[in-house]
């Protein structure tokens, strides 16, 4: 037999020496590894082989001994190009947590998203992300999401349901599309196209898109239309203001675009960057103590009925200053001196001041616009030319649509991101309508409205969707999917296109839209594909804003005064009540998110519930105690005694009492939407209600039971004036304390962290950021009541001063990583030890759970696993389902019961940063390692770095005269430090 010689290439045929050399190796081609070759000095001697053999044998024998359930990891047979196991990929996208549409980066590991963070490229938002945004990744893995479309409650295929819907719509006539706020310009264009579409079918096709928001800004939009002729929500320029007056407006917490505002606010109050001259002065006048109000330099509580009167009083005072004749005044409770001083400060900063109100009383909004107009703020800090699209709710249009539906003039209604049966003040009207009008819901779950709808076509989660968002005109954020859809859901826009009969998918539509609209507005890229790839990669596309114009104020103010006088009926029902959103649950959309339910409200520190905030004086007068249940109309709700709450008014949070949202959110709190009145077509954010005691008491799940610092030196406060005067010595007492221990020499790095209490606004974004990063379990209401929440970082909130209007300070508290750690000496089994670079480390698998370390921790930051929180039916949250567990960070172990845990200063991120620097062969650069809390902070209050690097930010900050350690007299030598809070509060200092 003749021997044929097959050759692979000319090298082999000609016997190229380098080829022959390569051929001898086991793997002639380079192995596809992420690490560079130098890192992989793979050499194994016989001894190594025997060691490994012995280890694997012993290991498998040991593994066989345990009762651990076997969970098979399946490696990729064919590895996707961009996925390297164990290495994270980051994708830019847009946040779907609320309509603020912040730019985000989504971290994926092995193809699944595990964390979202703010996109630093999105200049509008500053790179942070709020608690809701960070938690919305958990909703992706929500078990309650529908598996596929439903037709009359039955599971059907998409083809089938599309046929049915198309047939129905074709002969329908008038169709109402009730949408959530659409920040996506492409989606609005699509709907416009759909509206115009004449399917040339029988029946009169008329599509009306109506935007419904449970907490709309209708009054503001209407006032803008009335007085400036533009029906918009202005874009507020906090960063350009010197004085801001908030009137019932929680702009740092829940209102319109909190991340953007928090970022701008902190930029203007960042004393550590020598920003002392133009420190933003903040005055807040409000009913309930909001997150925003708690940060104000001056805060005045008022009843909601006084809102318009107070705005008018400020306006009158300003008119005096401007030399105009003032309007007739209305009665209010603020003393004249305060009004005068507020007006003077605003007047002094004309054109650089800002008054914002979240009120739904049109009169208040009119006065506020008049104030801004008088101050020359329109066109400077109040931007009507580049408006915000982040809340487009239009109550009047919703009311008209509802009336039309009731009167039978509407054939079908489509709910996109809306759930009026839950959130509308008059749900029974919607229920009645849904009985006669044919309806489609695009909800991702069988919510209160969807369960009554004819068809349910579940929408994707934001992280599965393609989209664009233009939260503020000319600031575009792109949304790209970071995972293949987990369910048989379909993006809402895709459904619209299907029903329109459009060929092709929404991705193509969006691309075409971007080509026609965005590509033309730029000049950096010649080819659209390059532009598109770049924009998607960056996640952000910004064009120059339209020039800001001054609008002249139209309309008669004395008419508005007359109107305001006639509003007495609104407040007639006994107790005045204002409605607000809580930081985590907001309007209730994310109510099935256990992270958000367990997030303590920064002000009340209550989780897992809503409640009626009652002022201490009012509670005393009415004999109410914490947790006493009261009846508001026919709704029973527990009382929370809230210092700072206006006397004579209560405040209740919307967003609770969901019945069809899922196992974590159903039945949590009570739904108070029915208490809201509709007044002149606007759903009011305040009103009045009858109040009586129900005669029982419940226990609220409060994470902080004591609210005074007891005169202890925990949060230091200093006024701007004193700061300038103070020297290093008299500012922080840096006594040299002696110690019995040897000075520990730190090798390599000396990590340190500092939290600037001037900038921490208490928003709790870091709490959720940490929870997502470190697999912190949810323990539920009962366990929080037992004071067993597991958060590694908490926001301590202290009040000082008078109970009716206290000053509030926030202090993020996490493991302080003491150099002389009290926890380390007491552990009998060395389960908590010190690293060479200064970290206090907890070794979970060594811990036997004596809890001595937690007892001996002066900061009480250690958290004990009282139960198994994962795979335990008693804790039926995300960690009890396979899908919910997808969100877990694979770099972090899930702790079993009986072990202690605590903040590790994100040791996995430190390791990752160190490895990356090593791989790149350079030194670690300051700022390369960002901890989860630091990264998430919208106001950039947290700085982490290496003290061994003399040029690092932290090295400089540790020299600052405001820098101090909490409880430094104990000489535990923490590496986490704080900066005294600087404010313009009239009487700073400790309680």
């Amino acid at each position, binding site marked *: 037999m003749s021997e044929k010689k097959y050759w692979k290439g000319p090298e082999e045929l000609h016997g190229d020496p380098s080829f022959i050399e390569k051929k001898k190796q086991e793997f002639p081609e380079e192995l596809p590894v992420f690490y560079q070759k130098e890192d992989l000095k793979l050499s194994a001697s016989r001894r190594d082989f025997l060691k490994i053999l012995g280890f694997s044998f012993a290991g498998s024998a040991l593994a066989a001994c345990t009762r651990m359930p076997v969970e098979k990891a399946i490696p990729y047979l064919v590895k996707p190009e961009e996925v390297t196991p164990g290495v994270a990929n980051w994708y830019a996208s847009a946040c779907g947590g609320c309509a603020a549409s912040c730019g985000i980066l989504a971290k994926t590991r092995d193809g699944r998203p595990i964390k979202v963070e703010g996109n630093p490229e999105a200049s509008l938002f500053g790179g942070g992300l709020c608690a809701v945004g960070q938690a919305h990744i958990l909703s992706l893995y929500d078990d309650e999401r529908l598996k596929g479309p439903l037709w009359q409650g039955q599971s059907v295929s998409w083809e089938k349901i599309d046929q049915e819907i198309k047939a129905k719509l074709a002969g329908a006539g008038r169709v109402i599309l009730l949408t959530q706020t659409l920040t996506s310009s492409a989606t609005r264009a699509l709907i416009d196209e759909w509206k115009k579409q004449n399917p040339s079918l029988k029946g009169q096709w008329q599509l009306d898109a109506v935007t419904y928001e449970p907490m709309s800004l209708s009054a503001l939009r209407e006032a803008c239309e009335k007085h400036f002729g533009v029906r918009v929500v202005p874009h507020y320029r906090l960063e350009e203001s010197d004085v801001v007056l908030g009137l019932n407006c929680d702009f740092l917490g829940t209102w319109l675009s909190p991340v953007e505002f928090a970022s701008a606010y902190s930029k203007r109050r960042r004393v550590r960057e020598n920003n002392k001259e133009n420190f933003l002065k903040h005055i807040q006048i409000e009913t309930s103590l909001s997150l925003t109000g708690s940060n104000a330099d001056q805060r005045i509580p008022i009843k909601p009925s006084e809102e318009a009167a107070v705005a008018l009083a400020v306006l009158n005072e300003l008119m005096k200053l401007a030399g105009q004749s003032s309007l007739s005044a209305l009665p209010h409770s603020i003393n004249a001196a305060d009004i005068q001083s507020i007006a003077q400060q605003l007047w002094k900063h004309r054109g650089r001041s800002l008054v914002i109100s979240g009120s739904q009383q049109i009169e208040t909004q009119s006065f506020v616009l008049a104030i801004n107009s008088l101050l020359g703020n329109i066109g400077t800090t109040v931007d009507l030319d580049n408006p915000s699209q982040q809340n487009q709710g239009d109550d009047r249009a919703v009311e008209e649509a509802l009336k039309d539906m009731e009167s039978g003039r509407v054939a079908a209604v489509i709910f996109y991101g809306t759930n009026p049966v839950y959130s509308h003040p008059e749900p029974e009207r919607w229920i009645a309508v849904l009985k006669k009008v044919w309806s489609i819901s695009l909800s991702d779950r069988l919510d209160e409205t969807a369960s009554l709808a004819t068809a349910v076509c579940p929408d994707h989660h934001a992280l599965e969707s393609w989209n664009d968002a233009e939260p503020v005109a000319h600031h575009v954020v792109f949304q790209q999917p970071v995972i293949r859809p987990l369910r048989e859901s379909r993006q809402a826009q895709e459904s619209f296109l299907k029903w329109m009969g459009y060929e092709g998918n929404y991705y193509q539509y969006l691309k075409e839209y971007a080509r026609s609209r965005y590509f033309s507005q730029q000049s950096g890229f010649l080819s659209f594909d390059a532009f598109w790839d770049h924009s998607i990669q960056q996640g952000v596309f910004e064009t120059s804003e339209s020039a800001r114009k001054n609008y002249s104020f139209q309309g008669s103010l004395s008419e508005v005064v007359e109107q305001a006088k006639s509003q007495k009926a609104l407040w007639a029902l006994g107790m005045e009540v204002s409605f607000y959103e809580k930081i985590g649950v907001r309007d209730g959309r994310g109510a099935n998110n256990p992270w958000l339910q367990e997030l303590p409200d920064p002000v009340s520190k209550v989780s897992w519930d809503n409640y009626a905030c009652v002022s201490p004086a009012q509670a005393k007068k009415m004999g109410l105690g914490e947790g006493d249940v009261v009846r508001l109309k026919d709704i029973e709700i527990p009382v929370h005694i809230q210092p700072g709450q206006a006397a004579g008014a209560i405040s209740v949070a919307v967003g609770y009492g969901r019945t069809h949202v899922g196992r974590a959110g159903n039945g949590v709190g009570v739904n108070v939407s029915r208490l809201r009145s509709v007044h002149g077509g606007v759903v009011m954010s305040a009103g009045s209600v009858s109040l009586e005691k129900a005669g029982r008491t419940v226990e609220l799940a409060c994470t902080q039971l004591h*609210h005074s610092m007891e005169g202890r030196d925990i949060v230091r406060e200093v006024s701007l004036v004193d700061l300038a005067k103070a020297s290093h010595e008299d500012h922080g007492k840096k006594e040299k304390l002696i110690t019995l221990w040897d000075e520990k020499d730190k090798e390599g790095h000396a990590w340190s962290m500092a939290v600037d209490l001037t900038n921490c606004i208490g928003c709790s974004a870091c709490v959720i950021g940490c929870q997502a990063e470190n697999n912190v379990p949810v323990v539920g209401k009962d*366990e929080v009541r037992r*004071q067993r929440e597991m958060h590694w970082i908490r926001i301590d909130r202290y009040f000082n001063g008078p109970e009716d209007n206290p000053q509030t300070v926030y202090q993020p508290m996490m493991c302080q990583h003491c150099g002389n750690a009290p926890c380390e000496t*007491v552990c009998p089994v060395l389960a908590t030890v010190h690293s060479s670079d200064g970290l206090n480390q907890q070794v979970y698998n060594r811990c036997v759970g*004596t809890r001595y370390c937690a007892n001996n921790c002066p900061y009480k930051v250690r958290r*004990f*696993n*009282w139960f198994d929180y994962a795979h335990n039916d008693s804790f039926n949250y995300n960690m009890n389902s396979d899908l919910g567990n997808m969100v877990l960070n694979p770099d972090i172990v899930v702790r079993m019961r009986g072990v202690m845990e605590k903040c590790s200063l994100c040791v996995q991120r430190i390791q990752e940063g160190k490895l990356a620097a090593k791989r790149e062969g350079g030194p670690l650069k300051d700022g390369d390692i960002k901890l989860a809390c630091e990264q998430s902070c919208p106001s950039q209050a947290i700085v982490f770095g290496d003290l061994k690097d003399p040029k690092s930010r932290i090295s400089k900050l540790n020299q600052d005269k405001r820098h101090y350690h909490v409880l430094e007299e104990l000489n535990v030598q923490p590496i986490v430090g704080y900066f005294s809070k600087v404010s313009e509060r009239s009487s700073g200092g400790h309680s």
Partner: protein
Amino acid sequence: MRPALITGKVTLNELTQDICQPLKTKPGAGWWAGFLVALAALALGVGLVAYQIKVGIGTWGLNKTIGWAFDITNFVFWVGIGHAGTLISAILLLFRQKWRTSINRSAEAMTIFAVMCAAVFPLIHMGRPWLAFWVFPYPNTRGDLWVNFRSPLLWDVFAISTYFIVSLVFWYIGMIPDLATVRDRTVAPLKKAIYRVLSMGWDGSHRTWSRYEILCLILAGLATPLVVSVHTIVSMDFATSVIPGWHTTIFPPYFVVGAVFSGFAMVTTLLVITRKVMGLEKYITITHLEAIAKVILVTGSIVGTAYLTELFIAWYSGNAYEQFAFKNRITGPYGWTYAIMVFCNVITPQFLWSKKIRTTPAILFVLSIVVNIGMWFERFVIIMTSLHRDFLPSSWSMYKPTFVEVGTFIGTFGLFFTCFLLFVRVIPVIAMWEVKSITGGSHE
């Protein structure tokens, strides 16, 4: 003239007869009732501990701020109870206090059982009790990972285990002559075989006695420092920490005296019942009870002084945290526990100045129980009220025990009394050989 240590004239034979009587006869209804109640309590405790180990420490009322409460309170309480036994058998032996002879056997038994009850808590209070063996410094393959010799909890492990072993050996060695007596009097073959093995071939020769008494003295010498060391080290669990209210140098003597105080109270409780039920009034006389009462009076007064000293030092230190901790103990939400503690431990013992009260067993019985309640509250006050409000007010918290915690505590009483009731049925409850040395027959 000192009063006679036992009343009436008894011959040595009568004494043996009297004391061995319970070992021969069937137990009476009273014993059965007591035994069943104790057994039921023990069963409750075992069930609850099993439940708690299966489900988690979360079944207790602890939280993020209060990591120890009922568990360690009970631990210190039981360890304290044990102290009287060792004190009576070792220190009083060295001081040649003859009156101890009638009561040392039962007091030592009490020590053993109390330490057993105490040892339950450090074990079950762990989050992962199945790994409790990690606290022992045994040779292993984990390399550098060993125990932490800086941790007071580790010192506890050594202190308690040493104490238990020495007490057990001392108790057992002290029983050998009596076991031999029982062996010789027993007819039933199985019982006889058991007593034969236990009495280790005791032959009663002069040589045996001579060696035996030397051994007893050596063991007494070994046990004596333990009386002081065990509770000193237990107190260091708190004294070496940073928590205001725990971080106190007075703790070692204060804990030791408190332990003796509570231990003697428990001895009183047990003996008043035992002498009555088992008809041993002849041997455990009013004189004995009065001597014990005097010890209670002295130690109780020292404890009261310690309370005042603590308050003074808190004021004198000028440390705001320290001052707050003590103010909070007295006037805070758990002020009532402090009030109970002061009433039971400081006021109650002062009644013992009256001879009438010292010599009335019924009153002594009530007083001893009051003292033990007070001493339990003392530990609760120290442990819980210091933890519940420490440095940062944001973490201040409240504590309420759960059914599981209370049930487990009851369970340890079940264990204690079950053991004690079995003890009185199988072992001579009074050291016959020692009492014989002080009866009129052989003494003076």
